[in-house]
């Protein structure tokens, strides 16, 4: 049976907001990082779906998705590196511990 494009988009949207929500609520830096990954992948899903359903026969969306994945991988790498750095400094990666700079 044919799954309507809206469903996919809904999945994407749900992922996005799940990510956003996670980012708001999670106190652990790694958890927030995972949430951001959710958001990025939501966008990637959109690209793939749009390409597949609305503009079949072209590859722009797919390529965009691929690049998006690659870039998010790079970002994650850097992010984790920095978190290690944070951990080395404060022995902890709770978001509350990186709130010295304020005001």
């Amino acid at each position, binding site marked *: 049976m044919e799954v309507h494009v809206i469903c996919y988009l809904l999945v994407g949207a749900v992922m996005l907001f799940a990510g956003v929500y996670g980012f708001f609520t999670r106190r652990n830096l790694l958890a927030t990082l995972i949430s951001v990954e959710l958001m990025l992948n939501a966008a990637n899903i959109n690209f793939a779906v749009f390409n597949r359903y609305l503009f079949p026969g072209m590859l722009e969306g797919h390529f965009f998705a691929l690049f998006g994945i690659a870039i998010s991988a790079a970002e994650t790498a850097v992010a984790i590196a920095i978190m290690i*750095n944070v951990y080395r400094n404060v022995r902890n990666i709770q978001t509350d511990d*990186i709130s010295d700079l304020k005001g």
Partner: protein
Amino acid sequence: MNNSNLSAILSLHAELSLVVVLVVVLLADLLRKPDAGGRWFRVMVCLLMGVQVFLDLTPDARSLFGGMYVNTPFTSVVKSILSAGTLLVFLQCGEWLGRRDTRFRQGEFYVLTLSTLLGMFFMLSSGHFLMFYIGLETASIPMACVVAMDKYRHHSAEAGAKFILSSMFSSALLLYGLSLLYGTCGTLYFADVPGLLQGSPLQQLALVLFIAGMGFKMSLVPFHLWTADVYQGAPTGVTAYLSVISKGAAAVALAVVLRFVFPLMKDDWTLTIAVLSVVSITVANLMAILQGDMKRFMAFSSISQAGYIVLGALAGTAQGMASMAYYIAVYVVANVAVFAVISTIEQHTGGLTSRDDYRGLYRTNPRLTLVMTLALFSLGGIPPFAGFFSKFFIFAAAFEEGWWVVVFLALLNTIISLYYYLLVVKAMYISEPEDGRCVVAPMRSAPGVRLCLVLCVAGICALGLCSGFYEGLEYWAEAL
């Protein structure tokens, strides 16, 4: 065919030359002794950048890779402005990099910074949102590393974490917005999108998400909250770079895209930009009044400056673009000068960045104080310094498009901004230090810093009084 391809490739000379510099620096870094002082290394980098500044310029517009990459004289001028700014930053970073605990990492600093610059170049001359996005990320990811450079300083790490996380957040949303745009248009070529826009709610949402993502890079309120913390936490040189180069690049890129990709949704984005600009200027000014730490203070000042910069995008005209680029150039020299002074004092006093430490600075370091004063006056828009002209032009551009109220509110804000710039001047000239003598001893800054300051002062004084620069920008902007 082949031949023409080659020449086509060569017309990437801005990016290519930058890559060359990057590679050379990388290799040289591998070859040199890691714990050596590395003065000659720094000199070499600066020389290479000095050459690179002139390699950016191109006389004619070129489009490559089937329109993925578009290079125009205007963007090339902006690129060389950015390279020049980077050079100034490098000059002032010498002292910091020469320190025992950082000298073995200076190669990385240069490489990472240059790669962000490369990313900005691509972002500026992209003809497709994919290229744009790649450029954007290339510009931001290494930035996070540089921000976290002083890895044994807690604040540096915190700043890095905040930067990378929030920038990932914003880029995710931007990416989502792009996906929506793609979904509604079916293509992401700058050349094709305008024909397919019809201003549907989805596109409006996409537009907002896009502007938000760029607003994050330029740190417009309310997407600015990372700015102050990161500026304060990052090494001062990096802060200087962040505050001028990436901001400027993002601003021009945003202006270009809005003007040429979203012409049909002009009402939408002008309104959005107008609101963002006024809010940014006002909120940032109000916050800046309260800051006692110079780096944090400059963070808010730069936020409000970003608010002024986007007025050029608001106009969405050739004059707007020109005055924007001009504003950025002027802003670069002034801001870099301020940061140079800040970092010099920081380096010589073991990390003093509080405004109260500047009391009576004029007694001990008249030269530095004078440079600082000129730079601050230029930022505050006081004639005969360049800042006055740039403000006037950008206001004129926005005014011409009928944004009287916005311009007026921005003008009222100049009073507040003048107030807090004068607070610094007051600290340096008027206020008496607590124990009668200034905590900053008379000092002699490094040659690189001095050269940087000289260049900045020259720019502050000359850019305004000599009209050629602006007229050139105007000409190229018309040619866009």
